[in-house]
C-alpha cells in the first residue's frame, strides 16, 4: 500500500459505497430514542414529551407525585407540542403532551385509540410597549386581526381610539411581533382571530404556524423571544402565554369577549371561559374554548392535553400512567394557581375520570 491509493476517485468510490451501505442500514431508522423502561431495583420509569407551555406544572407534578410514589420515576421533556404528538405516534414516549388536540388524520394513523386528557387551562395575552400608556389597552378580535394583517398601521388609528377613548395613543407605527416557530400559542391566538374576524379567517386562518402577511411585523422564537422583542422595541405588540406574562409582570391588554365585555386575562376569567364551554365539550374532549360564552370569560383561552394510548402494552407501566393522570387531575390541580394555570372545572374532571377509567392493558381495566 502506498499513499497514491487515496486519490480523489477512490474517495468518491468509497463515498458511494458508504452511501449504499448506509441507505440499507437507515431504511428502518427512527428519529428519537426508545421510551423509558423498567429501571433496575423494580422501579418504573416513564417518559413523557411534548408541550413546553405546561412544563412548570408538569415538573411540579412529577416531583410531588414522585415523593408519594418513590418507585415511579417520570421524565418530562418539553420538546414542543408537535414533537409530543410525534413521540406518541412513534411510541418513543409513554405519554405525549400537546396544547392543541391531535388532528383526525393523525389519530387515524396512530397504532391504537389515543385519549386526550385535559390537565390545566392557559390563555394567550397581548403585551405591548407603549410609553406613557398607563391604563390597560382595550382590543377586540377585529382590531388585533387588523393589526396583524397590516390594516391598522399606527397606534392612533381611529379604530383603536374608538375602543380606548381614555388613552393618548402615540402617532407611531405599530410593530406586530409573532411566533416564528410552530406553537400551540399561535394556534390558540389564530383560532380566536378566525372566530372573530372573517377577514382573518380567509387570509390567514387558524394554524400552529400560520402564514403571516409578508412585510407585516417580525417573528421571534418562543415566548421569551416575543417578550424580548416587545420589551426592546417601542410601539411593538406581541402575544405570549398568560403564565409567562404573569411571571414577567408584562402589561396585558383587555380583550373583548363574545358577550361584548373587555376582560382581563386572569385565572378567574380563564376558568369562566372553561365553564362557559363545558356544555359544548365533545365526547373525545378535543375542543377549542376561544371566544367562549359568558360575561366574565376571557376569549383567548385553551386546555392543554396529555395524550395516551387507551390500550397500554405494558400493564405495570399502564397502571403507573393511570395513577399519575388520576393524581394530577385531582390532587395535582391544587398546584395550578400558584403557577398561574387555571385548574379544570369540576364537570371536566368528571369527564376526565371516565376517560382514565376506560384505559386498559390486555383488555383489563387499569384503574379498579
Amino acid at each position, binding site marked *: 500500500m502506498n499513499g497514491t491509493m487515496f486519490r480523489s476517485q477512490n474517495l468518491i468510490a468509497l*463515498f458511494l459505497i*458508504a*452511501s449504499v451501505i448506509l*441507505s440499507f442500514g437507515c431504511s428502518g431508522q427512527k428519529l428519537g430514542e426508545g421510551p423509558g423502561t423498567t429501571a433496575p431495583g423494580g422501579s418504573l420509569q416513564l417518559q413523557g414529551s411534548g408541550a413546553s407551555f405546561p412544563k412548570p406544572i408538569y415538573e411540579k407534578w412529577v416531583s410531588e407525585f414522585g415523593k408519594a410514589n418513590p418507585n415511579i420515576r417520570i421524565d418530562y421533556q418539553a420538546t414542543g407540542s408537535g414533537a409530543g404528538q410525534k413521540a406518541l405516534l412513534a411510541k418513543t414516549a409513554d405519554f405525549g403532551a400537546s396544547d392543541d388536540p391531535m388532528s383526525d388524520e393523525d389519530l387515524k394513523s396512530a397504532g391504537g385509540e389515543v385519549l386526550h386528557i385535559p390537565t390545566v387551562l392557559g390563555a394567550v395575552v397581548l403585551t405591548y410597549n407603549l410609553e406613557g400608556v398607563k391604563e390597560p389597552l382595550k382590543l377586540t378580535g377585529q382590531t388585533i386581526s387588523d393589526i396583524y394583517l397590516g390594516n391598522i398601521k399606527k397606534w392612533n388609528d381611529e379604530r383603536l381610539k374608538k375602543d380606548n377613548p381614555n388613552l393618548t395613543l402615540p402617532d407611531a407605527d405599530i410593530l406586530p411581533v409573532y411566533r*416564528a416557530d410552530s406553537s400551540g400559542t399561535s394556534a390558540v391566538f389564530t383560532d380566536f382571530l378566525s372566530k372573530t374576524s372573517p377577514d382573518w379567517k380567509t387570509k390567514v386562518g387558524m*394554524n400552529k404556524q400560520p*402564514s*403571516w402577511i409578508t412585510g407585516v411585523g417580525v417573528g421571534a422564537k418562543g415566548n421569551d*423571544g416575543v417578550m*424580548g422583542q416587545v420589551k426592546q422595541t417601542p410601539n411593538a405588540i406581541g402575544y405570549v402565554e398568560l403564565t409567562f406574562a404573569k411571571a414577567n409582570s408584562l402589561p396585558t391588554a383587555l380583550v373583548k369577549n363574545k358577550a361584548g365585555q373587555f376582560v382581563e386575562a386572569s385565572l378567574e376569567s380563564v376558568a369562566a371561559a372553561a365553564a362557559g364551554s363545558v356544555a359544548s365539550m365533545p365526547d373525545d374532549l378535543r375542543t377549542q374554548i376561544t371566544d367562549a360564552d359568558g360575561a366574565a370569560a376571557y376569549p383567548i383561552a385553551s386546555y392543554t392535553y396529555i395524550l395516551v394510548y387507551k390500550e397500554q402494552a405494558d400493564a405495570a407501566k399502564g397502571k403507573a400512567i393511570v395513577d399519575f393522570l388520576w393524581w394530577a387531575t385531582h390532587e395535582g390541580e391544587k398546584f395550578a394557581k400558584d403557577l398561574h394555570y387555571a385548574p379544570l372545572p369540576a364537570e371536566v374532571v368528571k369527564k376526565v375520570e371516565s376517560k382514565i377509567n376506560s384505559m386498559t392493558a390486555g383488555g383489563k381495566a387499569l384503574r379498579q
Partner: protein
Amino acid sequence: MAQTGALGDKIFRAVLLLAATSILLIVAGIFVMMVQNAMPTIGRFGIGFLFGSEWKPAQEEFGALPFIYGTLVSSVLALIISVPISLGIAIFLVEQAPKGIAKPIAFMVELLAAIPSVVYGLWGIFVLAPFIREYLGPVLQGYLGFIPLFQGRVTGIGMLTGGIILALMITPIITAVVRDVLEAVPTTQREAALALGATKWETTTIVLGNAASGIAGAVVLGLGRAIGETMAVTMVIGNSPQISASLFEPANTIASLLAANFAEATDRTYLSALIEIGLVLFLVTFVVNAFAKILVMGVASRNGKAA
C-alpha cells in the same frame, strides 16, 4: 526506541484509514438520511422548490428562495464587515504589536470564539438592536438613504442586525487562522523586504501576498460558520421569509428556519420540506466552498505557490 516493525506500521495505517473513512461515513450517512426523508417534497415540488418565493407551511406551499437569499446576503454582509477587521487584528498582532499587547488581545479574540451563540443573540436583542434603531439606522438613512439598501422602517431587527451579529461571531475564527498563517510566513521574507528599503506597509503587502491562500482558507472557514449559524440569527433577523432590498427589513436564513421550526414540525410534508431545505443548505455550502477553493487556487497560482 522500541522496534515496531512492519506489523506496527500496518496497524498504524489501518487506524488512520479508519479515522479518515469515518468522516466519509458520517457525511454520507447524513446525506442519505436527508435525501430519504426529503423524498416526499423532492418528488412533489421538484426543482420549483428552489425558486419558489412563498413559504407557507399551512397551505403546503414551499419555496426556498427567500431563505437561500437570506442565507447568502447575511453571510456576505458578515464577511464584508468581518474580513477587514479580522485582517487588521491579525496583521497588528503579528507584524506590529509589542508582545505585551499582542498576548492579551489574542487572548480576548479567542475568548470571543467561546461565547455560546445564544448569548450573542441576547446581546443582539438587548444591545445591538436598540443601537441600530436609535443611532446606526438613522445615521445610515440620513447619509445613504437614497440607496434602496438603507430605505424603509428601522426596527432594529432585520438583515443588517443579523449580518453584524454574524460578523462578530466569525471575526475570532478568521483572526485566529489568519494570525497563524501570517506567523508561518518565514521571517527571512520580511527581513529581505526591509533590507531592500521597503516600508512596513510594503513589507506587509508582500507577506499578505504570500499568505493569500491561507487567508482565503480562513475566510472560507468563517463563511461556513456564518452560513450554518442558527440561534443568534433567529433571535435578531426577524424570521420573515421575504426578499427585500432593504437591509433594515426582517429576513430569514435556512439555518435559522430549521432552528426555529424543526422541533415543532409534525406534518409529514412540512417535515420533508424542512429536511429538503436542509439539503439545500448542504448544497449552498458545497457550492460556496467549491467557489472559494477555486478562488484560493487562482490566488495561489498567481503568487507562484502551490496551494
